[in-house]
């Protein structure tokens, strides 16, 4: 699947494409308005990551162009403008999601994965990772066809890890994903540790391998055990 990153800050654009480039995703980049318009006219993308303020024009115009030509490309707006108006404008113009800078790359990864899942729905409502099956509609997880009793936070956490598999996710990124702005209050990462510990325990007890491991106390990573 192809992704297009329309972002004028090359450093940020490179970070995003490096993070999202996997065997599944191939990332293209456009640093200005005109290049972006050319690329969207020539190719179809599974998802376009779109900055609003670009040299040569507005990201919203690119979005309008896509909608005018009935392109099915999903669009995720990344903007430094953290105002409700912009968010509403962007979503009204047909964007699928909106993320405010500065964001954590795993958060972006999870959002992109979610958008693509939604767009290519093809009748199934589940994500399969090895022996784990996540039902997105019921928000349940099955191991070997047996439902594991997870709390809402544990389920969110697992989905977040699977959307960012084989990547190290920092504790800050996890905290922001689970609690949003409220995490400011907590000031420590003990909660994350507790939730992850419980999640791992439940998965192992259900007979699944331990996919999640801690990386130097900086973060966590979900991958196949070595």
């Amino acid at each position, binding site marked *: 699947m192809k992704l297009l990153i329309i972002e004028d800050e090359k450093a940020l654009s490179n970070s995003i494409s490096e993070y999202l480039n996997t065997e599944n995703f191939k990332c293209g980049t456009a640093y200005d308005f005109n290049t972006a318009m050319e690329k969207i006219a020539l190719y179809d993308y599974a998802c376009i990551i779109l900055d609003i303020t670009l040299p040569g024009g507005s990201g919203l115009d690119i979005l309008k162009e896509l909608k005018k030509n009935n392109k099915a490309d999903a669009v995720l707006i990344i903007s430094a403008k953290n105002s409700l108006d912009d968010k509403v404008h962007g979503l009204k113009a047909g964007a699928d999601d909106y993320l405010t*800078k500065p964001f*954590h790359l795993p958060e972006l990864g999870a959002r992109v994965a979610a958008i693509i899942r939604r767009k290519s729905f093809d009748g199934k409502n589940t994500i399969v990772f090895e022996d784990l099956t996540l039902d997105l509609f019921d928000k349940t997880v099955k191991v070997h066809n047996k439902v594991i009793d997870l709390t809402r936070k544990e389920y969110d956490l697992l989905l977040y890890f699977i959307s960012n598999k084989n990547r190290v996710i920092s504790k800050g990124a996890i905290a922001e994903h689970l609690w949003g702005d409220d995490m400011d209050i907590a000031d420590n990462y003990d909660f994350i540790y507790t939730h992850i510990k419980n999640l791992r325990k439940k998965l192992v007890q259900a007979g699944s391998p331990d996919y999640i491991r801690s990386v*130097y106390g900086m973060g966590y990573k979900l991958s196949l055990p070595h």
Partner: protein
Amino acid sequence: MKLFTKYNRINVFATVGIFLLASVAFYFLLRYIIIDQVDQDLRIEENEIETSVKTFHKLPAIIPVHDQYTTFTEISLPSLRKKEFATLKKYVEHEHEDILVRQIAFDINVESQWYHVTVSKSLEGTEDLIQSIIVITICTILLILVVTLLINRIVLKRLWQPFYDTLKRIGDFKLGSKQQLDFSTTNIEEFDLMNGTLRQSIGKAEQDYLLLREFTENASHELQTPLAIIRSKLDLLIQDENLSQQQSDAVQGAYDAIQRLTRINQSLLLLAKIENRQFAETVSIDLKEIIEQKLKQLHELWQSRQITVSDNLQKANIFINPMLADILFNNLLGNAIKHNIENGSIDIKTSQGYFEIKNTGQSQSLDPARLFSRFYKSNTSAENHGLGLSIIKQIWEVSGCVIEYSFEAENMHSFIIRW
């Protein structure tokens, strides 16, 4: 006091004063003229009597004349050296009462016999005339006053109408709403001048406001993007699992600093936005609902520190911007948890127009004078950026609530909001 009430007051006092003075002067002048006239008549009478005595050597016969009474009295010696005028009350027989008269008295010698002569003329008619004139004058004053007041009220109200129109338009005007200020053109130079000046200064304010807003957005963009870059680079850096423990610690330190920087930046932007009245829309919000929801959201955070939360929530509606309400109570509840102690307590009460949150915390009072100022920190905790209470202050200022802080025995800190 209204301008034209003040003007009217001065006007009425001046008018009444002038009229009264004029009436008094008029009265005395009129009286003087009339009495002078009567005196002349009396002198003519005197001349006639003297002529008669000289010619016929006897007193003339008294001819009864209306309003004129003559008397002759025999006297042995003349008592008056010259004639005398006097105004006095005198009994008049055919009127059967005392009436006011003007009288001339003189002595005259007829054939070696002295007579004392008085000739009186009634002043009753004159007095009536003066009284009528006074009554007419007073009535005229009153009439003029009433008419002036009415005219002033109607005319001035109409004259000032453009002024009130302008005031209303300015009152309804909101900066940043990009609406045009249309003052109706009057043909009064002063009002047109005022409208012109207002249009100009409001235009300037509007322009400054938009520039400030633009600045806010630019500042946001300029800071958020480098922050996003740093954060993304760190996110990539930790993908390398060959980092040493030392390097990992350094990365973690950088993460935490970026997190703080992000929060400070977001808080400053939020403050600027609230100050710019960018959250002007208000709706009625049920406080009970929002607090129950917040307590549920923050459940984990207070439970992990063994904080007991007790609440007494009654239905309380407040008119506020929903986003601001969210931030306000997030900050208040967040502070109550963050600055609490292990095994501490939080007590929340709401009722209509009243919200109170009390929590245990450090054992000395916060400085009420500086509490809500930016970057105020009660302790030197580096984690705390000191903007939370400034945001709370800005929110209550734009939402029209009042907030009070008080410190109670030992370690209880309480915040009360009234609206």
